[in-house]
């Protein structure tokens, strides 16, 4: 069994894919914790869609190596634009944002459709090709990871305050829009870094799902962050392994990026089941103790339970 888990990675292209997925899985999950806290899942989704035309234009101008800069420019512009939108209106309920993101997405599709290799290119941009990742892509991802983690580490206090109580943050003199911009740029950078490997559509899962699953298992942000990162990395590894083994052993081709996402979703469902079982048990224990004791018994604080399996 251990043989099965390790041997595939003796092939260099699989090793590169593994390193890239581990980096992305961990990075996206950590950013995802802030996305979860600030409730930015919708905005992150919009960002991934708007990056798409940037990817296409970059590719049309500079080929494979044009993708990263193209995506980077559009992502930064989009992050600024969305921050501005969010500062002036209620973005979560805003149809303007929906129009904007589908419009951008359509521009990307129209541009790609003019090429002869339309289907193959579209698939690559939307869903990524982790098995063709080059060493330079890994380096780019590592640099992005360094920048993003530095931003988040430096601003974690302030980002926490803004996520929890933006009004009080404003009252204390913080520039909430500037902090939101920093977070949106961090998200945009992660999306850009993930384009080659998992594509613009699936990256949203890498960001949102690990943090959501970890949130089900803990009430403490530090624990949530560690669990989410571990979950993101483990899912990258497991997804790659499963897609490889199935194609080698059974001749069934599974898209690696999508397999990673499915593993993540399975992990989320598992976490959901664990949290449900736990809350039922908690309630039963609580009613039992309330029966025997006459005084009011406070329910055991959830924070003390710690992290469940995985």
């Amino acid at each position, binding site marked *: 069994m251990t043989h099965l888990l390790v041997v595939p990675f003796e092939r260099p292209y699989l090793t590169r894919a593994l390193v890239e997925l581990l980096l992305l899985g961990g990075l996206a999950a950590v950013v995802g914790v802030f996305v979860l806290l600030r409730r930015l899942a919708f905005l992150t989704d919009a960002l991934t869609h708007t990056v798409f035309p940037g990817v296409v234009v970059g590719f049309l101008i500079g080929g494979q190596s044009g993708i990263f800069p193209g995506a980077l420019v559009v992502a930064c512009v989009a992050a600024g634009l969305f921050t501005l939108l969010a500062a002036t209106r209620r973005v979560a309920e805003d149809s303007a944002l929906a129009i904007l993101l589908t419009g951008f997405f359509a521009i990307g599709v129209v541009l790609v459709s003019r090429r002869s290799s339309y289907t193959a290119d579209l698939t690559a941009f939307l869903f990524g090709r982790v098995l063709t990742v080059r060493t330079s892509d890994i380096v780019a991802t590592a640099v992005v990871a360094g920048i993003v983690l530095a931003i988040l580490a430096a601003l974690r206090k*302030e980002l926490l305050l803004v996520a929890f109580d933006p009004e009080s943050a404003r009252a204390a003199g913080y520039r909430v829009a500037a902090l939101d911009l920093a977070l949106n740029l961090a998200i945009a950078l992660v999306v850009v870094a993930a384009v080659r490997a998992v594509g613009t559509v699936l990256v949203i899962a890498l960001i949102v799902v690990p943090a959501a699953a970890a949130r089900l298992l803990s009430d403490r942000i530090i624990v949530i962050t560690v669990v989410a990162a571990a979950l993101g990395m483990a899912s990258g590894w497991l997804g790659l392994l499963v897609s490889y083994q199935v194609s080698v052993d059974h001749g069934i081709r599974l898209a690696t990026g999508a397999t990673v996402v499915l593993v993540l979703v399975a992990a989320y469902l598992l976490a959901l089941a664990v949290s449900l079982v736990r809350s039922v048990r908690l309630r039963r224990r609580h009613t039992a103790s309330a029966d025997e004791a006459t005084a009011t018994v406070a329910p055991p604080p959830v*924070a003390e339970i710690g992290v469940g399996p995985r």
Partner: protein
Amino acid sequence: MKRGVSSGGGGLGADRLLSPNDRAHTVAAMSSEAAMSSDARPASNPPPGSRVATPRFGLAALTEPVAVAAAGSVAAAGSMGGPVAAARPAVATEAVVADDFSAPHRRPTAPPGPVWTAQPAEAASPAEPAAAGVPDALVLADATVAYGRTPALERVNGRVPAGRTVALIGPNGAGKSTLIKAVLGLVPVISGSVTVLGQAPARARREVGYVPQADTLDADFPVAVAQVVLMGRYRRIGWIRRPGAVDRAAAAEALAAVGLAHRAADRFGTLSGGQRQRVLLARAIAARPRLLLLDEPFNGVDAVSQDALLAALARLTSAGTAVVISTHDLALAHLACDDVCLLNRHQFAFGPPAATLTPDLLRATYGGAAVELGAHGVIVARP
């Protein structure tokens, strides 16, 4: 407000609120309500200066030492129960009552300030020297505040000296929250001026504390009580740096001041509404503000928490912090505040409660929502 806690408590605010004939009945109602409450905090960890054994009535902390004598009879009355037990104290009900309180002997040391009403002739000049040389924490001089172009609040005058408490009173939409935001520099002042600790509002923010309504915050947010209180120190800690031992000590002290030290490790959302409000006050206290602004802190707050909030506020004012509270609770304003500012789009009065919480002024402020109660009071139905 200063006297309450240092007196050692034991007093009951009710004797200030009610005529002697009514006292026993109402007190009985309060005590039995206290006994029924399931929210009683563990007796092992009372906040400093709190009275564990006395019936909980929010205003107890604010009374003069004379009131101690009443505690015995109160306890006795409390055990009687009886048909009145189901009644709730006036302060806690939806409709709030402003009685014609025994105003003359309330707060004998508080100098009766001027009453500024809406009439321009009586509007006080902001240049008027502060009473007894106490520096002003907040001065409003004909301030008009606007979102965009339409004024939300016009021509407000008033002054809050250090260590004093002012209640902002008015119906929903009257502009109470807008005024608080203007003092924080978050809403522009389009004419007149708002001066906070001698500076423009936006420049004084670091020394101004703000306590939002607890129920506006996400109860699912994964943050511990201690972490929330520590947020009050973030401005002092500065960018990038981690909270140090001094910050943790200040946060722990602030949490103890609202009587919730034993809940430090619990998730914020697991606390009751009143307890969350106390945590938010602790967060503001941890920042050591010179001016504290509270937006409806007593809405939906149980009596234990109201008591704890008032005790903590009394301690703050005795240390020189000026406090501005927006509230619907006229009785509370009467007992806990030195001055009252009556607002409804513009200012109707500013001055000591005895002079401002009068049937005429309240009727003017609340319009149709005010109902007169005989010769002694007004009921203001919440719109």
